[in-house]
């Protein structure tokens, strides 16, 4: 293989329960194409290596695709979870009506009565991608349904992503490390969790776009080619189309550029890699309707413009330095610095004034909560309530990236590798804030551990190979290795760039000779090391396959549980949505907590008040308030919004923990954030939301409690809630303003209908005490002496 002769990367295994830590080693010579062995046999070996590499990549792609099919095999070919249903619905619309209709689609079935301009509020990348695939297949007379295409979009794109990983790692390190990283990424659990077949979400294509953009950036950085720079902005455009996470790119790349400038590594390649990306990329990003002027207006993008200015200043300084003599340059320098500082201050003052005038300082809530992890929980419960916005726990690191969390490596500090290191550091931070961003961390961890593993393998295998060769020559290599590496490390850094340019054309035979002598371990430890690495990789593979098969393949609309008497399937969601589709009027409005909005519109085809696109806090708060209010108030709120049906998800009978009672605290918090008469303290007993006998009256009278537990006591006679593990507080009650119309087989989804207003108003004799006093006279008057209940 090619990498056997690649330079040995000094590496480090961090066997600590911490996320990857990074150490910068002394720079080592980097040789990418040093495999070009001199001699005639070398070319054949190269060709063979190329074929083998391509074949391996194909297999990696297959692996990435097939490991994600567990969900289809174990369950069925369905769209998963919540957001994918919306994307699926949009794709259906796109395939039926075309791009322009999609762009101008005003959807009147969501966010009733506000409606939603889908074309202007959705990242169209995923939809357009799947729509294009569907259109292509259909024009090739392969009649696949839109749903099938949607289900398999994510696995296809994870194959693409692993190939992009190969390219990126190869660019930074070499093809061997690239293959290793690609293989690791193909089955990293974190990525699988978001891209199993059926998980038709933005992240499915966005991770590919992210890695590919980084690849093109590094490629441009290495080659200084405008062609790649232009491609890079196109790839960035695709990323902007696909996912809101593009802001990560537009902040990470400027950070890296700044790092390069600060460390004195400015070059024309850096300029070519950055300037076109910002100009073209920003123009292109502004074309995406959902981004629009945000591309130049919001604080998320300011860093890139600032760095753009700095880069030009630095470029000018370098240019002037080349023109002037050192003395003149000094004079000019002071002049420029004074003027430049003045201008900078002026611009900064204007910017600060602009930014300070906006209440959120120009940042969107989500970005702010990334910078200040406590921000959301303090001010925006709606963001804090989303489960994927919660900070992850330590086990989830182990679960999602497994051994990669402990694997990292030293790298020779080149532009490309410093970029990767920066990528890792920032993504580790962000993943620590939001569990969803673990997904961004995964490629970084894969690439770096791929490099580490391939480096380790190459060192160990080579030392075994050399051991055999040098054992006859009284093995002097190992003793020289350390000394050699030290001298190498001392002489390299300053000449780094020139050196790299030369390397890319082909390493000199002399270099080749020195490298071969580097770091050769004794045969025994090398063999043990290889064994250990293989075992480690084996564990990783086993874990990944287990995660793909067991943990992440459940579609969440169909649940299964295994007990001693076999497999139980809970298909209640589809049962309920199917019922609504067939038994309610087309224009009926269904109220539920926002989690089920997308599914209701996609599967039941009914209008909903709120859905998973949480853009209008007030509207969600209205629904939350209704759920937290007593029956009558809730009825008034709902009927003012023309609601016909109310849907609640209840897990108390079968022990399904993510039901509405467990989500109830967010309804109270979000509702109370807008409507202050909802006070969280009224629902709390000893700091807990409890629905047992100690529950507060407000809690036990809330609509959510009543709708969940109505007739619940009839199931077992005690009203034992299997999620909360106690008996409920109020067991026997009647509903006055709502009537139960449908409850699914396992009681997971319960649908209620709002009763119409009473046809008649019953008369009440208000003067009851006075009436009673005269009742004696009245009853005496009566012939039959009948008791009169109204007097």
């Amino acid at each position, binding site marked *: 293989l090619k990498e056997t002769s690649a330079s040995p990367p000094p590496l480090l295994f961090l066997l600590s329960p911490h996320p990857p830590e990074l150490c910068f080693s002394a720079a080592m010579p980097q040789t990418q194409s040093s495999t070009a062995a001199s001699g005639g046999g070398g070319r054949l070996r190269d060709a063979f290596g190329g074929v083998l590499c391509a074949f391996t990549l194909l297999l990696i792609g297959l692996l990435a695709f097939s490991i994600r099919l567990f969900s289809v095999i174990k369950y069925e070919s369905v769209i998963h979870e919540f957001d994918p249903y919306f994307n699926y619905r949009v794709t259906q619309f796109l395939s039926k009506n075309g791009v322009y209709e999609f762009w101008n689609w005003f959807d009147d079935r969501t966010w009733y009565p506000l409606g939603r301009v889908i074309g202007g509020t959705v990242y169209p990348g995923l939809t357009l991608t799947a729509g294009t695939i569907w259109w292509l297949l259909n024009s090739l007379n392969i009649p696949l349904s839109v749903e099938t295409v949607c289900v398999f979009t994510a696995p296809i794109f994870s194959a693409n992503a692993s190939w992009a990983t190969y390219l990126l790692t190869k660019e930074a390190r070499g093809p061997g490390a690239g293959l290793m990283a690609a293989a690791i990424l193909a089955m990293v659990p974190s990525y699988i969790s978001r891209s199993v077949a059926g998980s038709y979400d933005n992240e499915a294509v966005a991770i590919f776009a992210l890695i590919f953009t980084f690849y093109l950036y590094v490629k441009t950085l290495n080659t200084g080619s405008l062609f790649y720079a232009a491609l890079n902005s196109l790839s960035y455009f695709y990323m902007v189309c696909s996912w809101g996470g593009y802001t990560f790119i537009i902040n990470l790349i400027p950070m890296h550029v700044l790092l390069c400038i600060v460390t004195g590594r400015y070059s024309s390649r850096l300029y070519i890699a950055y300037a076109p990306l910002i100009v073209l990329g920003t123009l292109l990003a502004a074309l995406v309707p959902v981004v629009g002027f945000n591309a130049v207006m919001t604080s998320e993008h300011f860093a890139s413009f600032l760095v753009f200015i700095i880069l030009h200043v630095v470029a000018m300084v370098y240019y002037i330095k080349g023109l002037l003599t050192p003395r003149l340059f000094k004079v000019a320098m002071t002049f420029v610095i004074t003027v430049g500082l003045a201008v900078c201050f002026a611009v900064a003052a204007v910017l600060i004034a602009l930014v300070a005038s906006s209440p959120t300082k120009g940042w969107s809530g989500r970005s702010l909560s990334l910078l200040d992890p406590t921000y959301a929980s303090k001010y925006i419960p709606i963001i804090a309530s989303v489960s994927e916005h919660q900070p992850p726990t330590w086990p989830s690191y182990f679960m999602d990236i497994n051994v990669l969390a402990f694997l990292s490596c030293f790298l020779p500090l080149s532009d490309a590798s410093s970029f990767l290191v920066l990528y890792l550091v920032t993504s580790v931070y962000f993943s620590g804030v939001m569990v969803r961003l673990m997904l961004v961390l995964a490629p970084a961890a894969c690439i770096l551990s791929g490099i580490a593993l391939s480096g380790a393998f190459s060192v160990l295998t080579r030392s075994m190979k050399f051991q055999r060769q040098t054992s006859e020559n009284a093995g002097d290599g190992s003793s020289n290795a350390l000394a050699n590496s030290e001298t190498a490390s001392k002489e390299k850094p300053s000449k780094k760039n020139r050196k790299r340019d030369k390397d890319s054309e082909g390493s000199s035979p002399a270099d080749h000779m020195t490298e071969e002598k580097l770091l050769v371990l004794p045969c025994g430890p090398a063999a043990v090391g290889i064994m250990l690495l293989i075992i480690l990789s084996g564990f990783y593979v086993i874990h990944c396959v287990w995660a793909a098969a067991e943990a992440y393949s459940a579609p969440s609309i169909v649940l299964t549980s295994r007990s001693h008497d076999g497999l139980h399937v809970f298909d209640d969601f589809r049962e309920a949505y199917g019922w609504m589709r067939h038994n309610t009027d087309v224009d009926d409005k269904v109220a539920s907590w926002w989690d089920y909005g997308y599914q209701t519109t996609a599967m039941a085809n009914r209008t909903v008040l709120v859905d998973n696109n949480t853009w209008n806090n007030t509207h969600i708060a209205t629904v939350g308030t209704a759920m937290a209010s007593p029956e009558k108030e809730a009825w008034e709120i709902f009927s003012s919004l023309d609601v016909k049906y109310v849907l609640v998800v209840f897990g108390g009978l079968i022990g399904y923990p993510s039901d509405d009672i467990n989500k109830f605290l967010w309804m109270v918090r979000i509702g109370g954030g807008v409507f202050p008469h909802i006070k969280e303290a009224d629902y709390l007993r000893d700091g807990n939301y409890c629905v047992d006998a100690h529950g507060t009256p407000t809690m036990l009278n809330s609509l959510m409690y009543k709708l969940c537990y109505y007739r619940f006591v009839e199931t077992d006679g005690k009203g034992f809630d299997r999620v909360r593990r106690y008996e409920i507080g109020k067991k026997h009650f009647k509903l006055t303003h709502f009537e139960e119309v449908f409850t699914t087989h396992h009681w997971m989804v319960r649908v209620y209908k709002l009763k119409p207003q009473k046809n008649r*108003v019953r008369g*009440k004799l*208000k003067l009851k005490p006075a009436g009673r006093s005269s009742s004696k006279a009245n009853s005496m008057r009566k012939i039959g002496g009948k008791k009169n209940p109204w007097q």
Partner: protein
Amino acid sequence: MAAPRHHLLLLLFLAAALALAAAEGAAAEEGPRGRRLLVLLDDLAVRSSHSAFFGSLQARGFDLDFRLADDPKLSLHRYGQYLYDGLVLFAPSTPRFGGSVDQSAVLEFIDAGHDMILAADSSASDLIRGIATECGDPEAMVVDHINYAVTDVDGDHTLIAGDDLIQSDVILGSKKIEAPVLFRGIGHAVNPSNSLVLKVLSASPSAYSANPKTKLSSPPSLTGSAISLVSVMQARNNARVLVSGSLDLFSNRFLKSGVQKAGSKTRYERAGNEQFVTETSKWVFHERGHLKAVNVKHHKVGETNEPGMYRINDDLEYSVEIYEWSGTSWKPYVADDVQLQFFMMSPYVLKTLSNDNKGLYSTSFKVPDVYGVFQFKVEYQRLGYTGLSFTKQIPVRPYRHNEYERFITSAYPYYTASFSTMGAFFIFSFVYLYHK
């Protein structure tokens, strides 16, 4: 086995014949209500003692079915279909109905959109009181020592000459009832917060509610004009119910007798009862005051087809035809207070509809600059009339991407700037690259 089937067939045949007869009986236009009334009596003597009232109903085309209240074959519906369109409940003292009818059956009958006249008297049973209460009026006996009618028997002031009538042409007809209305029976209280119930005939301020045969030991619970003698209820589904505290009010004796109010010099040859019962029964059985709205249309100005969706700032026209049932035909309803709301959580546009005196109400307006799912909403509730409440949902979308202005005049400097920069850059590059 055979006998019941035979009966059944016979009944079916009868029902079919009845339906046919009804269809023939109905003229060219179909009224809002059918004409089959069930009259429930305590005693068949009432049939003759109240024959004038029944006669006036029959004269107006109603098909009366007299039954004893405890008739064991009594039934309001058969095979899911109601057999009657209205109910006259002149059985104040019946403790329970016969057959399958009970209090809840009567209430369901009303909730299904049928009408009822209920008369009670001092012997009203719990059942009758129960029904009245469910319709909104609990009851008690009324005595009035001042506004009593002058009669032969002195000292009995329970015969009241009431003239405190509701001011509504719709309920009482356009001709004013001059003579006082004779009333003897129990009064009832109406909850002022109950918007569905109206007092048609109220007691005078000097009336009170008590048992005249006994001595009052404590102040009466119901006094003055709070007492309602006759009240009507129009349910939310427009079913109408008249509750009278007096069965005698409808009797031939009261209809035919003259009246002189105590303390008043004028003596009327005929009491107001006949006019009162005729007009109110017309109202109750939807011969008057029933509105219908048809042909709700809306379209863009200059077009005729109804679009599925409007765009913001579109100009649109809305029209609806409203008719009133006159007892024989649908006549155009003329009013200047019908309002249309263009509604999304709150009314964005509120316009009074103009009419052409032929029943066509129309208006035109500009769609507000807000997108969302709107409703054309007409809520028309007027005293005595059936409520009109109809909505039509219509989404309003924002501009399409190509509906904005292409070139904005005020932006010409920017266009110039960008194109001149591009040109300058091209020239600069050309000069820089090829000029040495």
